[in-house]
């Protein structure tokens, strides 16, 4: 079943493990068909703009484990996102009513001489520095292009220091060049967690449900508590001990299986913690299915049905009112794959048209291989077909899509892309908290947010009047897939 082999520190990339691709142009139903039949192939682009790498995704999770430290074995540029994760950390602590503090991050700051003579001696020093400075319960060593190409034996140093310091020291093979699909970074981070942190269960806690999340607010406890369950949000803002006891929970659910696929499958494979296989909890249909799957897994079917009924009733009136106001509006979504599907289904549930979606990559299957969890299938089945393009944040392609489709509102979920919607004069907003649109109350929050953006488009109009796009007139007339080569 799953390829989780905790003896080995590295794992295959998403391309190798799940057949993931970063380029596609066509209908959602075609993409689903190609994925199901295993015939989906990547079409490399000749001209490309920069995208993101696995190192960012790995550090984004590990840097927020409150009593762990991250040593980035790399030149200082790879620490470019330290500032962002530090702000995420401080803001998250303030939101959780705790004193804000800087994240526990160190870079070995590899230079020219390290590239020639090797930086292992520096890596040892950095791990010891991290130990003295932060007294962490665990240290994660994140690798880089430079450390890989210069042949650093990061695993040997990590094992030696683990011995010396008597705390887990785990390597994370998130070298940038290894994968075009930056979410490989989540998988290698979870692999390090499964290898070195998660412990066999001391005593089962069936009422506890692992929820694999980013940094969003806890919207799960309010729902779970009403059916006698306890939400255990991981990995951000958790501590090493709580992560170690993931194996004791009654089930694992995800708000986005692009994020949690490897960890959820790993916990089931290694400690038989059942992974709830369901589409993501966005929109009425998605949330109902997700809750029912959870109910079946933890034998709370009756309580879940009552919960679903009461929530449908509670949001009914305002949902109708929002649908009335949003009727006729067209939205366009650009986000990571599963989360993109979720946002598209939320727009449809709010009674809006969806002109299409641009998703940063596509996994034809998940680690659990179960079609019930396939969010694209769910989207097409429940909310109808729509044009889909897959591009790893190629702004020049996205601009042409938006200029052609002219949606009323453009919804984005990744840094760096929303500004281009704004510059086209399209009301645009970033999904800041990925739980904002989640489940029943999320539907209403999201509807109200769309109305805010549409009600006062002055900023976008103003921006588009004065901002000049960096593209030639020639390019703006081309179709978005002009630079996509045929599949290799």
């Amino acid at each position, binding site marked *: 079943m799953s390829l989780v082999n905790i003896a080995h520190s590295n794992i295959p990339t998403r391309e190798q493990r799940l057949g993931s691709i970063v380029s596609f142009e066509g209908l959602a139903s075609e993409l689903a068909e190609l994925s199901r039949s295993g015939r989906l192939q990547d079409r490399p682009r000749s001209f490309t703009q920069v995208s993101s790498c696995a190192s960012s995704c790995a550090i984004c999770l590990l840097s927020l484990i409150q009593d762990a430290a991250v040593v980035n074995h790399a030149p200082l540029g790879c620490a470019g996102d330290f500032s962002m994760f530090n*702000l*995420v950390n*401080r*803001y998250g602590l*303030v*939101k959780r009513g705790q004193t*804000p503090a800087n994240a526990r991050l160190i870079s070995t700051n590899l230079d020219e001489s390290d590239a020639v003579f090797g930086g292992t001696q520096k890596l040892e020093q950095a791990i010891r520095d991290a130990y003295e400075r932060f007294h962490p319960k665990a240290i994660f060593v994140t690798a880089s292009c430079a450390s890989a190409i210069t042949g650093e034996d990061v695993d040997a140093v990590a094992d030696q220091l683990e011995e010396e310091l008597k705390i887990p020291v785990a390597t994370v093979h998130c070298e940038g060049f290894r994968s075009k699909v930056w979410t490989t970074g989540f998988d290698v981070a979870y692999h390090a967690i499964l290898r070195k942190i998660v412990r066999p269960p001391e005593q089962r806690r069936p009422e506890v449900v692992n929820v694999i999340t980013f940094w969003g607010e806890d919207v799960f406890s309010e729902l779970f508590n009403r059916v006698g369950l306890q939400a255990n949000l991981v990995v951000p803002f958790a501590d090493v001990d709580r992560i170690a006891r993931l194996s004791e929970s009654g089930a694992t659910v995800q708000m986005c299986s692009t994020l949690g696929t490897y960890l959820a499958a790993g916990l089931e494979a290694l400690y038989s913690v059942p992974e709830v296989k369901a589409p993501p909890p966005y929109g009425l249909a998605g949330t109902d299915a997700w809750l029912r799957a959870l109910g079946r897994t933890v034998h709370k079917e009756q309580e879940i049905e009552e919960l679903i009924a009461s929530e449908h009733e509670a949001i009914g009136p305002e949902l109708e009112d929002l649908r009335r106001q949003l009727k006729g509006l067209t939205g366009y979504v650009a986000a990571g794959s599963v989360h993109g599907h979720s946002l598209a289904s939320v727009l449809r549930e709010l009674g809006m048209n969806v002109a299409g979606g641009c998703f940063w990559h596509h996994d034809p299957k998940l680690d659990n291989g179960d079609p019930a969890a396939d969010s694209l299938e769910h989207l097409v089945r429940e909310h109808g077909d729509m044009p889909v393009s897959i591009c790893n944040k190629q702004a020049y392609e996205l601009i042409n899509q938006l200029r052609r489709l002219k949606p009323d509102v453009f919804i*984005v979920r990744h*840094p*760096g892309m*929303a*500004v281009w*919607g*704004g*510059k086209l004069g399209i009301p*645009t*907003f*970033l999904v*800041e*908290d990925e739980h904002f649109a989640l489940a029943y109350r999320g539907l209403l929050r999201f509807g109200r947010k769309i109305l*805010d*953006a549409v*009600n*006062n*488009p*002055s*900023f*976008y109009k*103003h*921006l588009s009047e*004065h*901002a000049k796009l960096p593209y030639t007139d020639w390019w703006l007339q081309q179709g978005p897939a002009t630079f996509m080569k045929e599949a290799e």
Partner: protein
Amino acid sequence: MSTILQHPRHLCALGGQQSVVAIPRAIPILHAGPGCGFKLHTGLGSYNGFQGGCYSGGAALVGTNVGEKEIVFGGEQRLREVIDGALKVMDGDLYVVLSGCATDLVGDDIENVVTQYRRQGAPIVYAATGGFRGSNLHGHETIVNAIVDQLLTPQEKISGLVNVWSTVPYYDPFWAGNLTAIQDLLAGLGLRTNLLFGPDSDGIDSWRRVPAAELNLVVSSWTGLSTAKLLNERYGTPWLHWPTLPIGGKETSRFLRAVTEAAHVDGQATQAFLDRQEKRYHYYFERAADFFLEFRWDLPSHYVTVTDAFYGTGISRLLSGEFGLLPLRHFVTDQPPLEQHEAIQQQFAVLSSELNAPLTFTADGDQITAELREHPDSAPLILGSAWERDIAAELSACHLSIASPMMDRLVASGSYFGYNGALRLIEDIYSMILSAVQ
């Protein structure tokens, strides 16, 4: 019509003393109680942007410090003593005698005393600014009109000269920066500005040139209108009243085009100047777009203004007109004359029908707090005085002090006027928010 005020944000007519301090080498002489001068210096200056006494304010203020004797038997003799001393001790080009409550109430004939000195050649005027007569904004107008009335004589017209009457010195902590900004912007149109207050003014020489101007430009909510009308009667000078703060790309250009027309300046030159300024402004507007679109956390979508109509309308047109924010509530706190209320309602409503928020005329902290409590979970951006910090904390809202009294900021030459003023305001608002969330 004055109401009981909790946490007042403007003071009494004698507060006009600060407008005299703002005229280079002008000396206020207070014929009032011993404590008035110092109280008004702290309330309008020291603890309102920490504006100090400069040349003739603070401890240098001249005062008769009337006591029981002057109340019971009159203070005119005391006033003569102090004026004699001032003319010898205080090195000034203009002396302005201001009455306080005590001397106004007991009916000292100050005008007569002061007129005698003027007849003997002293550059001295008198303004009836007893505290109970009205606010310090009213006091400011009374003093300006007194100088115009008692000191100015007809002058040869100077082409392209524009008198500038803007926000009340010291009361608006950004008054000096505003005047410099207006001077620079009008210079861009080829106009020569005659500033009557602040470091760029030539003091008494500027005041003597007032009748020579071809245009009186009143850039404030309502203060200065009576002066423009007086000057029109006396010297036939036309005036342009611009009641909202010109801030940001759209509003500043609209203001400059109106001035170009009123001052009959060549439209071509103006357009070239506007293009260059707008291009620069929008370079930074574009570079900040990522922040407004992609900042991940809690940027407020609504805002509240608790200030005078000049700043309230100007800032609303920037935040709603250019940055897409939604107005939650407006408070107009400088007690404008009743006949201006209708016009002010119009100025706020110009944005667009659905963006209209309730507008309340009040200067009472208790009423402002009560009405804001009607929006418990809106967590808006509150732009008002430092008094509003408590209600902002209570609503876990963001807050920036932009109005008197401004006890939490030091203001030097800062200003929110014009294209650069908008960039300054946006930097100040969002830096305050960023610092609070982490």
